[in-house]
C-alpha cells in the first residue's frame, strides 16, 4: 500500500464570522487568476468556471455524478476541494506561468490520498508565486496580480510556503 510522504500538516484558524475555529489540514494548490477592472478572482484550474468567493469557505459539490449526485468528497470519486500535501507537488502538477499558488486550510470530511487531499471545506490561508514560474521580465506583472488577489482574499502574500525545501 503506498504511503503518504508526510502526515497531514495541521493549522488552527479562526473561521469567518469569528465564532468557530478549526484545526484544519494544510493543503497546497494552484489557481488561475481572472483580473477585471483591477479585481482579482481565484478560479479552479480544473473546474475553470468555479470561482472562489473572498471571505467564505468553498463548499465542495460533486460535479461528476450526474443524476447520481452525492455529498462531496465521496470515496472513489474525483469530487471535493483538492490540495496537495506538499508545495513542491502542487508546483510539479501545475507549473504553468498563469497560475498562482497558495496554502489552503481544509476541514469537514477529508479523503487522504498518497500525495494530497480531497476535502469538504476549504479556505485560502496564504498565496505565493513559485520562484521557477517568475522570470525577471514577468516579475512585476506577476507580483501585481498576486498582490491584488492577496488583498481581495485577505491573506498574506508570502515569499515561499512554510517548510518548503525545493520546488523540484
Amino acid at each position, binding site marked *: 500500500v*503506498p504511503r503518504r510522504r508526510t502526515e497531514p500538516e495541521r493549522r488552527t484558524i479562526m473561521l469567518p464570522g469569528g*465564532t468557530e475555529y478549526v484545526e*484544519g489540514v494544510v493543503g497546497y494548490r494552484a489557481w488561475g487568476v481572472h483580473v477585471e477592472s483591477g479585481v482579482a478572482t481565484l478560479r479552479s484550474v480544473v473546474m475553470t468556471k468555479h470561482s472562489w468567493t473572498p471571505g467564505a469557505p468553498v463548499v465542495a459539490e460533486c460535479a461528476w455524478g450526474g443524476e447520481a449526485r452525492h455529498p462531496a468528497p465521496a470515496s472513489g470519486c474525483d469530487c471535493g476541494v483538492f490540495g496537495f500535501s506538499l508545495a513542491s507537488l502542487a508546483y510539479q502538477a501545475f507549473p504553468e506561468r498563469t497560475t498562482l499558488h497558495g496554502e489552503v486550510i481544509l476541514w469537514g470530511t477529508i479523503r487522504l490520498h*498518497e500525495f494530497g487531499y480531497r476535502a469538504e471545506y476549504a479556505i485560502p490561508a496564504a498565496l505565493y508565486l513559485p520562484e521557477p514560474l517568475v522570470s525577471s521580465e514577468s516579475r512585476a506583472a506577476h507580483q501585481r496580480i498576486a498582490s491584488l488577489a492577496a488583498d481581495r482574499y485577505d491573506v498574506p502574500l508570502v515569499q515561499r510556503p512554510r517548510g518548503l525545501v525545493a520546488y523540484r
Partner: protein
Amino acid sequence: MARIGKEQETITVTPEPVPEREPATAPERAPAAPDTPREPVPA
C-alpha cells in the same frame, strides 16, 4: 485522481466554538483588616 495518488483513509475535522471570554470585572477588594484595640500610648 492521478495527481494526488490513491485514496487511503478518511478523517473528519470539525470546527469548535470559540470559548466565550469571561467579562472583565474589577478585582475584589481585600477584606478590611479587623479593628484591633490600640495600645494606650504613654503620655
